[in-house]
């Protein structure tokens, strides 16, 4: 009796990953469609560069395609891809000349003069810059839990740390953000409140 073909649109991530281990291209396509945007966002939050984010997203998926056995838990594929993307973007940064990074930071700071009347776009740019400037692991933890809505357990598993360690990273990330945004926090809040009115 022939095996019933899987409907990849309703399969779990674990079922798709098992199929990917057999080099099933359709299953891999389904995994890409399901997760590529989240993986892209994680990369983007680290570098705020579209081209680099796309490169890294592609590289993360190709790593999975070429060696799916390195993923231990198929259900954790989303978190795994996010972590790989985050590591890849940091590797990319380490290879770039320091001057490029300093230039990027300078542009981000220059976009918001202290006495300016801020609009929503400026606030967004300021928050994006603050998140990008967090230490790597704090940023990844915050992105996974706050922006991509992974549970603490799933995010901890993806980062291969305990839930306690993840919660500590989240707390430190929030503390760091408060420190970074302390000087112009009121200005930023006023801007988004005014825009909301």
């Amino acid at each position, binding site marked *: 009796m022939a095996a019933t073909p899987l409907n990849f649109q309703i399969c779990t991530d674990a079922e798709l990953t098992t199929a990917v281990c057999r*080099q099933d*291209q359709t299953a*891999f*396509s389904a995994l*890409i*469609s399901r997760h*590529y*945007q989240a993986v*892209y*966002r994680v990369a*983007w939050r680290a570098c705020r560069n*579209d081209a680099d*984010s*796309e490169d890294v*997203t*592609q590289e993360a*998926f*190709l790593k999975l*395609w*070429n060696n799916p056995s390195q993923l231990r838990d198929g259900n954790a594929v989303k978190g795994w891809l996010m972590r790989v993307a985050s590591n890849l973007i940091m590797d990319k940064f380490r290879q770039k000349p320091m001057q490029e990074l300093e230039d990027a930071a300078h542009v981000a700071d220059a976009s918001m003069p202290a006495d300016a009347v801020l609009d*929503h776009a400026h*606030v*967004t740019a300021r*928050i*994006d810059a603050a*998140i990008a400037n967090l230490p790597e692991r704090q940023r990844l933890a915050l992105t996974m839990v*706050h*922006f991509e809505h992974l549970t603490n357990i799933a995010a901890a598993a993806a980062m291969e740390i305990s839930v306690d360690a993840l919660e500590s990273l989240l707390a430190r990330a*929030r503390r760091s*953000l*408060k420190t970074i*945004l*302390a000087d112009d*926090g009121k200005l*930023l*809040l006023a801007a*988004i409140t005014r825009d909301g009115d």
Partner: protein
Amino acid sequence: MHDRDLDKLLSTASAPKPSVGFEQRLLAKIAPANNIISFPRRKTASPWLIGLPLAASLVLGVWLGASNTSLNPANIMVSQTIEDSTSNGFDDVVALIEDNLT
């Protein structure tokens, strides 16, 4: 700054999206890898099948070369030749004739 204020600010962060067609480009990347048909692997003889006769012939060669036994065909021929010449040499012709005459 309160947690609630921070959450408000975080809610204004960008929600970036990949460029149009990125998913298709990504899918196209894996397609060529799937179309590669590898050559059938050549069947090679087991190394033991080649190595064993070679080792045996090497051992035999060394043994024959080192030993001074009558198994060596060269030794057999030489000793036979000397033996023949001593028993049937020119000096014994007279004795042989005399034997035949008596």
